[in-house]
């Protein structure tokens, strides 16, 4: 039995469009903030993970790709990947890197550092991304944040694609920092043990 399709079942298209847009204009990376803020609103206000459960374009993409192209081994992921220490550890690491990115933005804002037109993959590899710096009329810190945020989105998608191929399609969801954060919020709100 196929589930009835809703408009939000097609948000995997948004996940692709996002990266295409950022390829041509890095400022579009700011739109990714929607994927950060919406799940938190759902969790804080609604006390649910409706975003993860129904609206996450990335989760949908990881489910659809293997279904269409048979590109996942469909093997159970190692147990530690869904363990609490790994999930909370990855969340802490992710938030630290996010903080670091905000810091870089601040440095450009204050004039202490110059704008770097690179996308940093896996927090390590610098990939030139000059061509996407198409709108230069905005303050440089706005662009710096775009590069940082796009790097973070691209890196997490690549990690997600790797674990999708190696294990089950939505393995990324087990340690997705947004997923972990929203589940913690929901558990606290509902008086459950974290």
């Amino acid at each position: 039995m196929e589930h009835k399709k809703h408009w939000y079942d097609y948000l995997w298209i948004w996940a692709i469009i996002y990266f295409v847009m950022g390829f041509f204009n890095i400022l579009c990376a700011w739109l990714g903030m929607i994927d950060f803020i919406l799940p938190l609103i759902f969790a804080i206000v609604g006390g649910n993970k409706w975003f993860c459960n129904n609206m996450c374009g990335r989760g949908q993409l990881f489910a659809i790709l293997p279904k269409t192209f048979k590109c996942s081994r469909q093997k159970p992921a190692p147990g530690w990947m869904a363990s609490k220490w790994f999930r909370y550890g990855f969340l802490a690491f992710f938030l630290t890197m996010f903080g670091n990115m905000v810091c870089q933005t601040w440095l450009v804002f204050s004039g202490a550092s110059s704008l770097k037109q690179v996308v940093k993959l896996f927090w390590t590899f610098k990939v030139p991304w000059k061509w996407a710096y198409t709108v230069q009329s905005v303050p440089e810190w706005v662009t710096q944040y775009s590069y940082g945020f796009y790097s973070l989105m691209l890196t997490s998608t690549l990690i997600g694609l790797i674990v999708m191929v190696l294990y089950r399609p939505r393995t990324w969801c087990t340690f997705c920092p947004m997923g972990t954060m929203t589940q913690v919020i929901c558990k606290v709100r509902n008086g459950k043990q974290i």
Partner: protein
Amino acid sequence: MASKKVANVDKNVCVACGACTKVCPKAAIAVIRGCYAQVDPKLCVGCGLCSKTCPASCIEIIEREEN
């Protein structure tokens, strides 16, 4: 007649992603308040699709307890 088998979620491991809800042919599994997935044993037919899909491998198909 109820099926011999039924899905059972380890709520302590479940990440509440909802992948199971998308594959269940009977809409017998739902994420409860963003905390974990829960099976409705009355609807579950024990087909095992959720168990095969779960990225956290936290759903087991077990023998249904006789009431």
